[in-house]
């Protein structure tokens, strides 16, 4: 009779932050997530959901808040861009009232509440985003039979995959690069935490985007064609 030895992973640096220290635990987790993701996901403990949630919310909200503050500094450029855009959009376009309101809002100095409200809401928005991402990924994994170790495994993958969202602090392209990196890391995480094949992990992660979010891509193409038509009419 063979006895199967089941060893529980030691935990990621963030899950061992009591012994490593908060900053050191966070920095080591970030380094592993960005450079050695397989090592990070292999060491994640599925019973440390609250720690994983804390890491994801902290990383996402702090860097998004920095990005928002930098965005406020560059809001003058937004004004110029909106004014330029309004020259190309027809007066009867449904976008026009929105653009006017953006321009008007930018002309008046922001009240303290209007500035602080998005910053204060960032942790809640991050929490909703993290659970929505994990729930959709898990539902797809369930649907295609790739959920081998339950929701905590999917959540661990999605939570640590938020590490590249630190790039949200970089103005302009940071959020886009961070989001693409997040998708790749989620795939790696699903493969390791559920112990499934690369194809199964890729399908679990990419299927929602293929089914639903390709709408975004197609909508961008549609928007680009509309803009091209409008520019052609000038």
């Amino acid at each position: 009779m063979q006895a199967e030895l089941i060893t529980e992973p030691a935990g990621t640096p963030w899950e061992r932050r009591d012994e490593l220290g908060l900053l050191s635990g966070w920095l080591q987790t970030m380094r592993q997530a960005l450079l050695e993701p397989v090592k990070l996901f292999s060491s994640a403990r599925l019973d440390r959901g609250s720690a994983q949630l804390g890491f994801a919310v902290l990383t996402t909200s702090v860097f998004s808040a920095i990005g928002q503050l930098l965005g406020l500094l560059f809001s003058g450029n937004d004004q110029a861009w909106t004014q330029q855009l309004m020259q190309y959009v027809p007066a009867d376009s449904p976008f026009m009232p929105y653009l006017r309101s953006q321009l008007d809002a930018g002309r008046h100095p922001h009240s303290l509440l209007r500035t602080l409200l998005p910053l204060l809401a960032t942790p809640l928005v991050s929490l909703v985003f993290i659970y929505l991402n994990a729930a959709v990924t898990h539902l797809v994994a369930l649907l295609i039979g790739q959920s081998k170790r339950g929701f905590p495994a999917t959540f661990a993958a999605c939570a640590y995959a938020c590490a590249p969202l630190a790039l949200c602090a970089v103005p302009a392209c940071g959020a886009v690069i961070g989001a693409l990196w997040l998708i790749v890391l989620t795939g790696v995480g699903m493969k390791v935490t559920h112990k499934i094949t690369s194809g199964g992990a890729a399908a679990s992660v990419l299927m929602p985007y293929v089914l639903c979010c390709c709408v975004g891509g197609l909508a961008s193409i549609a928007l680009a064609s509309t803009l091209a038509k409008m520019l052609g009419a000038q």
Partner: protein
Amino acid sequence: MERAGPPSVHALGLAASGAALLCASFVVPLGMFDCPLRAETGIACPTCGCTRAFHWFVRGDFGAALHASPLGTLLALLCLAHAVWTLLRLLGLPYAPRLPKPTRALRYSAGFAILLNWVYVALS
């Protein structure tokens, strides 16, 4: 139904997220907007109408919600049911619903239901 202790962190997180989505659907007038893809190309995606379904669901117009998307209405109902159940468990209810095992038959049925929803949304 099975006996259960206090809700897990994930049950709480999912309940909070579901409640936040329902509240956002109430505050933001999402029903005003048509899907940009469908407006431009006429093609509906499998989740087309879900946003409008949430919008009508939180306003109590279940007919309009079902018309917009049966899948979206079901998701909104699940968000509400989970949030309410988790709140009751926080208040001391010692029971949790027993979730069915994801058997092959159940997975295929769910896939077929999503396909039917897509056909309905595309044709409506």
